[in-house]
């Protein structure tokens, strides 16, 4: 069993089998099974309270599964949660950067936490600032940046140590439509370089930009497929209608 799991996990960045998390008598994540391929953009959708956050915390090695297995970037989250944490990046709209640190200090801090060497940090910082067009903002406090810039920087910091998988928890909440789209182009570019992207969102148009999406209801995955296939299966014109149908069933 362990052998097949290890073998099948080779092309997969995330492999989840019968994953369950209970808090007392409440089952927050109920026996979910799915996998995400390397370089895939995977949308993790669901209503508030459906269990997305709990599942994501287990995938990131922050919470121990009650049962089931979960392999992320080649490491078992129950047995090697620290290895998992080193191999992933994480960004959420709520917290990502230190507001009272400068742009370069944030990069330096996170890269240091991930154990990158000084020289590599220095050269990659230049690259990243140039890529973002942020050279002039190097010494700006993060709190002084417009929200859209913060988000771009937060994403760049999350993938700075070249993780195999990046987890994005509602990364685009509250930003203007053009910035939201530019952010998704950054996601595409990262995926083209082979980074696996695991993303939650409440914008249903963004669900369309994923290679595949899963929709969680009451702790279970009720649907998982490419957006186009889901639209066809549910005879819906958009992912919004698909979502409504699955969640209200």
């Amino acid at each position, binding site marked *: 069993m362990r052998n097949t799991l290890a073998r099948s996990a080779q092309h997969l960045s995330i492999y989840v089998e019968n994953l369950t998390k209970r808090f007392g008598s409440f089952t927050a994540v109920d026996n979910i099974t799915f996998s995400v391929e390397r370089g895939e953009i995977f949308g993790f959708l*669901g*209503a*508030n*309270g459906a269990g997305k956050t709990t599942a994501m915390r287990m995938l990131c090695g922050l919470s121990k599964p009650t049962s089931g297995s979960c392999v992320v970037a080649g490491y078992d989250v129950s047995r090697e949660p620290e290895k998992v944490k080193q191999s992933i990046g994480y960004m959420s709209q709520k917290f990502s950067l230190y507001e009272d640190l400068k742009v370069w200090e944030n990069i330096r801090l996170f890269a240091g936490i991930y154990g990158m060497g000084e020289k590599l940090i220095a050269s990659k910082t230049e690259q990243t600032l140039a890529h973002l067009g942020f050279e002039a903002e190097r010494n700006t406090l993060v709190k002084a940046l*417009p*929200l*859209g810039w913060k988000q771009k920087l937060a994403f760049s910091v999350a993938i700075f140590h070249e993780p195999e998988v990046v987890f994005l928890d*509602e990364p685009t*909440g*509250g*930003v*203007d*439509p*053009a*910035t939201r*789209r530019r952010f*998704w182009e950054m996601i*595409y570019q990262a995926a083209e370089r082979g980074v696996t992207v695991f993303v939650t969102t*409440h*914008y*249903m*148009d*963004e*669900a*369309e*930009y994923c290679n595949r999406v899963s929709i969680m209801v009451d702790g279970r995955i009720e649907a998982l497929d490419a*957006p*186009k296939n889901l*639209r066809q299966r549910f005879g819906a014109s*958009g*992912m*919004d209608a698909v*979502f*409504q149908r699955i*969640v*209200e069933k």
Partner: protein
Amino acid sequence: MPATQGIAAGHQPPVISCRQLSKRYGSVEALRSVSFDVERGEIFGCIGPDGAGKSTLFRILATLLRADSGRATVEGLDVQKDFRAIRRRLGYMPGRFSLYQDLSVEENLSFFAAIFGVTVRESYPLIRDIYGQLEPFKARRACKLSGGMKQKLALCCALIHKPSVLLLDEPTTGVDPISRREFWEMLARLRQQSITIIVSTPYMDEAMRCDRIALVKDGAFLQIEAPQSIISRFPQALWSVQGDPMYGLLKDLRRHEDIMAAYAFGDAHHATVRSERITPRQLGENLKALGYLNVEVKEIQPTIEDCYMHLTADS
């Protein structure tokens, strides 16, 4: 001149009236001379991203913040001089969850009732629809509620003193699509009871649920109109373009000489086109020649999001 529409047409005085409201934080102009009126029973939407000035406007109207200049009235009362009287007539739901996390659903409600000197029972008819959905969880602490339920509780607390005006600052941010829809259905029912509602949102699709909207950007109101009128003023031809692979298609659309702008819109890209120079069919042929599969090009009606992006394109 939408700001004076209501008065000119001889209606009742506006429920909310703002004239040249400005507010600055240091070097940031949070509000730039904003003027508008809201009529009784209207749902008026302020649509724009975080940092556009929506919360600053709401806090001024809620009498919690002073404008640097300009004038604002709520129910004919001045937000500075008559703030006590305004607070009795106004329900305010701030952007951040504002309830007591350690109190239960029921305790939060009683607390807000007590503060306003009313009882839950006398206000119950107004909140019955909404509170009914929370009642099974009335003993649960507010911090243990899901995002959608928190919003419903916050709305109940904002309504507990039977206000005639509701200020809702981003009530649906971070809320899933189903709870968002339910929330807007509740607002539509409140509107039927002649409650005037000003609501802000970063979700452009919610604009269609408002009677009139203001598109807000960098502290300024770009347009104030019914959503349909804003759509009908979109000045260019807009085409929906599909084809595989989609990301490459977007980049090639932007390179096309007859296309002014192209953005991803869910399962299709939206392109503004110099339609005097090319037809949808010709564009489709161009794209097939570049190797795209399943190409489909058609003319479409813009959405509010298209309009917003067009209006803010140069900044």
